[in-house]
């Protein structure tokens, strides 16, 4: 088994695991951070698939800006009482 294949396998497993954790996470804040990490891993996967254009867009828009949007919205929905989601 060569190294590139092993890397791809690990990357695919990482993406599925990050996606699962983001969906099942109890804490909204943690889910958002996991989503950003998911976007970065997806960007890496696009690079491995030789789709550099998609990788750039994925990392800039999905991981970067959507993460910022989600965090801003998270700040909006958070009530003063339940601060256990705070980092």
């Amino acid at each position, binding site marked *: 088994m060569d190294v590139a294949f092993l890397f791809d396998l690990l990357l695919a497993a990482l993406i599925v695991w990050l996606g699962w954790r983001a969906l099942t996470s109890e804490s909204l804040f943690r889910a958002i951070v996991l989503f950003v990490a998911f976007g970065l891993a997806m960007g890496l996967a696009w690079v491995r698939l030789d789709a550099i*254009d998609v990788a*750039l867009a994925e990392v*800039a828009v999905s991981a*970067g*800006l959507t993460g910022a949007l989600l965090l*801003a*919205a998270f700040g*909006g929905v958070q009530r*003063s009482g339940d601060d256990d989601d*705070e980092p």
Partner: protein
Amino acid sequence: MTNPERDTLARLARFGSTLAVALVFAGLAFAMLSLPAEPTGLAAAVRAELPGTGAANPVTAVLLNFRGYDTLLEIAVLLLALLAIWTMRRGQLRPQRDPGDVLESLASIQAPVMLVVAGYLLWAGGSAPGGAFQAGGILAAAGVMLVLAGSGWPQRLSGWPLRVALVLGLSAFICVGVAVVLGGQEFLAYPASGAATIILVLEICATVSIAVILLDMFLSVLRGRASRTDTTASIDQP
């Protein structure tokens, strides 16, 4: 509704959604497995037509020449999404809390670099990976970082200059499309001689619009939050 009833309903809903997801997964897996072993895409056709498109990068040629209509609609969708966010926007932006020295100095170093990277991606889009969406995304990210670092600079774009920047990409696309139609061609079918210039102009306009739309989405979401009670936590505080 009593508790056991709600439990049964929740279990039914969970079972239904699991079933739906499993069916979709099975369908997708079947579609993937029944794909022909040899790639049958349009790559060869795109490569053959590339010289007349005005772009050396096949992805850019597809996005802005062959399927320019798709890109037009993508920008329209972004604009619609922003309008939807605007309808929910309330209140004014509160002055951000003190961002701290680290974020402030990092932003002042990084923002100019991001501007240059965005410009490079925009220019490289003609011949290498890059293009309007990537450049616009990075520009918007630079704006978000400046906002979080307490710089009031991105918010200065407001009123009608903001609106012009928001619709610049879409209107440039529509103008070019209509002009080509008036010249006797199909919608968005550029003449081969001027295609490179047209694509560059469209890409610049689209980059500006995408960056401003994405940044304004972020600012609007922040604003919606600002109208709530002042006790809410601020996201820029680690």
